[in-house]
């Protein structure tokens, strides 16, 4: 090939790079590894990474069963190694599956249109807020303090330079947003109210009441849904103007936090301000049904600095996992799945309430609950770890006033015996006189 090009050596092709910037030696990285060595390296890392532990963690990342056909199907090279379906004639597989994904998200959320996916639930929430700002022409935002704290942080990052003032509304003794405070926070400049339901504590918000307040003042309601399985048994927030979802629960591995699958869904009339890819149905020259990327005039490759967002690559393969999961469980299975989550959680919360205080107990919840103990939850978790159990998430990092409270989660995968063991150990902890909290906190990290 060099001969065909009429050059003496490969280095001639790199002549455009000024000589002083060309590397002469090797990069200082380890030598080539054989496949067996690579597999071995990652197996080793896996053993150092919680393999074999029973976990009660949720908080925006949920452990649900993943039907095996998800990986069988997404591993097909035709899905795995294709790119964004710009060339529709040879991308009908990806395009049709996204169309089905959009449809099912609409069915589940009660919205009229959904996009092809966003990076994750946190960035979807931030982009949904910016969308509400564009739609209303107003600039400020009221955020529930019961929204996932990391989602709030992401929104703050996105909002900083957009000149979008954020106001945070606290929660009540029942764990739900304080509607009186909410009403006081909304002004004529409020573009939207952003809440999460079930909220960060697993508690179901009174979406009706919140929507009424927001709409009364001409603000939009944006609802973030972090636990998608809840949609199987909970009435979706149909009163919302925009829903920003994290669909990880639908067949996406926990994967230490990513990749996940954000989605934005909304009313038809808002679609032209929606960020992200959209697939639409059309016909070919012979009148056959086919699918294409559409409404691209919202997007960066056409509109450049006037685009609705800079998003380009999204989470298509993860959206395909979600799509297959929704298809597997479908109309009946999703409901039964959600019911099992509800039953396990009700049982666990009941057991815990015998030994510790379960907070926010008077309003409906889905699959998470907050347990307050007299002992430091980091200390309790330190002991649980010794039994290969990962206890609930201590909340004081995010909510200093909830000093000894932890957020516990149960899914269909949580067994009664795991719940009983954990409850037993927490009860034992509560009875015992602990070591110094600092020492135990260090243990739990």
């Amino acid at each position, binding site marked *: 090939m060099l001969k065909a090009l009429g050059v003496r050596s490969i280095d001639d092709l790199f002549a455009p790079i000024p000589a002083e910037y060309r590397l002469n030696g090797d990069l200082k990285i380890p030598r080539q590894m054989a496949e067996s060595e690579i597999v071995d390296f990652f197996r080793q890392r896996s053993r150092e990474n919680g393999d074999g532990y029973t976990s009660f963690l949720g908080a925006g990342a949920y452990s649900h069963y993943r039907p095996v056909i998800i990986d069988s199907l997404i591993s097909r090279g035709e899905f795995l190694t294709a790119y964004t379906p710009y060339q529709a004639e040879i991308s009908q597989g990806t395009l049709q599956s996204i169309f089905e994904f959009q449809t099912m998200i609409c069915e589940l959320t009660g919205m009229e249109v959904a996009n092809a996916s966003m990076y994750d639930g946190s960035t979807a929430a931030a982009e949904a807020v910016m969308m509400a700002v564009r739609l209303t022409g107003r600039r400020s935002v009221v955020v529930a303090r019961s929204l996932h704290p*990391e989602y709030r942080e992401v929104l703050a990052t996105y909002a900083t330079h957009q000149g979008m003032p954020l106001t945070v509304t606290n929660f009540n003794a029942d764990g739900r947003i304080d509607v009186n405070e909410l009403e006081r926070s909304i002004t004529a400049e409020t573009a939207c109210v952003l809440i999460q339901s079930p909220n960060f504590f697993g508690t179901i918000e009174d979406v009706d009441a919140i929507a009424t307040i927001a709409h009364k003042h001409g603000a939009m309601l944006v609802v973030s849904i972090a636990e998608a399985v809840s949609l199987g048994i909970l009435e979706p927030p149909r009163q919302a103007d925009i829903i920003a979802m994290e669909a990880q629960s639908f067949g996406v591995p926990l994967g230490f936090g*990513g990749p996940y699958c954000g989605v934005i869904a909304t009313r038809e009339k808002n679609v032209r301000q929606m960020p992200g*890819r959209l697939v639409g149905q059309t016909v070919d020259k012979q009148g056959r049904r086919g699918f294409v990327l559409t409404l691209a005039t919202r997007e960066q490759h056409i509109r450049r600095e006037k685009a609705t967002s800079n998003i380009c690559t999204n989470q298509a393969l993860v959206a*395909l996992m979600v799509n297959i999961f929704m298809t597997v469980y479908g109309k009946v299975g999703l409901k*039964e799945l959600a019911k099992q989550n509800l039953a396990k959680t009700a049982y666990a919360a009941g057991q815990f309430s015998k030994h510790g205080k379960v907070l926010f107990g008077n309003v409906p919840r889905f699959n998470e609950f907050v347990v307050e103990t007299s002992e430091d939850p980091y200390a309790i978790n330190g002991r649980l770890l010794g039994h290969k159990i990962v206890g609930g998430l201590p909340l004081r990092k995010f909510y200093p006033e909830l000093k000894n409270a932890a957020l516990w989660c149960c899914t269909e995968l949580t067994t009664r015996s795991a719940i009983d063991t954990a409850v037993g150990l927490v009860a034992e902890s509560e009875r015992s006189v602990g070591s110094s909290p600092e020492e135990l906190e260090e243990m739990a990290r």
Partner: protein
Amino acid sequence: MKVPNKATRHVNQNEGVIFEKSSAGKAAWKLPPLDVPEVDTAKLLGGAERKDLGNMPEVSEIEIIRHFTRLSTWNYAIDLGMYPLGSCTMKYNPRVNEAVARVEGIANGHPYQPEKISQGALRILKTLSEQLLEITGMDAITLQPAAGAHGEMTGLLMVRAYHQAKGNARKKILIPDSAHGTNPATAAMVNYAVENLKSDSRGMVDISSLEAQMNEDVAALMLTNPNTLGVFEQDIHRIADILHAKGGLLYMDGANMNALVGKARPGDFGVDLMHLNLHKTFSTPHGGGGPGSGPVAIKKILEPFLPKPVVVTKSDGTLGFDYDRPHSVGRVRAFYGNFGMFVRALAYIQANGPDGLRQTTEDAVLNANYIRKGLEGTYDLPYSTPTMHEVVFSDKVQAKKGVRTMDIAKRLIDYGFHPYTTAFPLIVPGALMIEPTESESKEEMDLFVEAMKSIAEEVEENPQTVLDAPHSTRVSRLDETAAARKPILRWKPANQS
């Protein structure tokens, strides 16, 4: 719209949408028996209880397998052949990457599990970070951004924070006219004005324009290098000097890093910050449009502004997250980024080592030059500047017959190839942007060149064949105008539509 369920000669061409296969009672799921007491959902949830899941499908497992397998056969993919989308770096996606990403403790680690039992994941974050820093010649890195455009945003947030810390956030970002659309869209998201910078006759940044436009209002220049013409900006250090002299920063869009890995390091030629696309340069699969991953590597001056948390080694030698970063731009995503992509990228670097990475880059550049040589004379080459990893032709010759770049692209499908990138960069009217990557053999590229030459002949002899292409696909050209005019964005049953 109800499609009649009629038999055709090719069952793959008769696959409806999944909802059309649904009927009550079919199921592909089974839950274990409940080991805790049943609950009364009405009592627990009251008015919050959902009664109906609308048109969600009910289908069997074999139907699902066939449905998606049939859909998959309507896709083109790298696994089927050359996919020369310029600037997308459609290289082979090694399967060992997929295998290691699915090892139990890696696939199922919870982002909030205690650090004590997260040492494996933290080690992966740290190792990948160190190796990417060695590859780029930079000082510090964040892996948090979920894609290239997200990395751009993160980078510009750091640019803004840097200037703000000096007392003036500045007003605008310079962006060459050859840049990808995400660059200006990102600048707008970070509330900077965009100022266009024109290219010179070589397709490079016009130095005198840069000198004239650079002033204390400019926060940074966003530059892709090699640029979208596949041309290395030879005056790169001068560009950096012009910016630095007026206090500006040089941001490098690393979309085309596949031309540099192991051969040159942006940190050595004056770049202050840059993003990488793990789904381009580092072989993580494109997956039909994501997930991507867009780490941002920076020089020391920007380190205080990194998104939080950052991975640190603690006094006892274990790894942990540091959240105490008072100057941080904040978080750009929940948790730590697209971790599964870090695993794959690290496996790729391990499989290559220093010699493999260098060879990869050399092969990518060699392949692009081989294609350039093969097609020069047949297609118009608007810039004769030396080619790195991709080459940009134009449809100037073929346009005389009324055939445009998109038509040639569609005809290429009939020859068994995925089209190149069409109509981009904007500085080349009717562009054909071709990036073969290192993955293609000489045999595959010879076939591609032959196909492109054959299409050029067809344009001369029978342009209609090209204008009507593709002829061999399941559907012919689709009506995009109709799709946008009256959008149908979801399926509805016949009686509801």
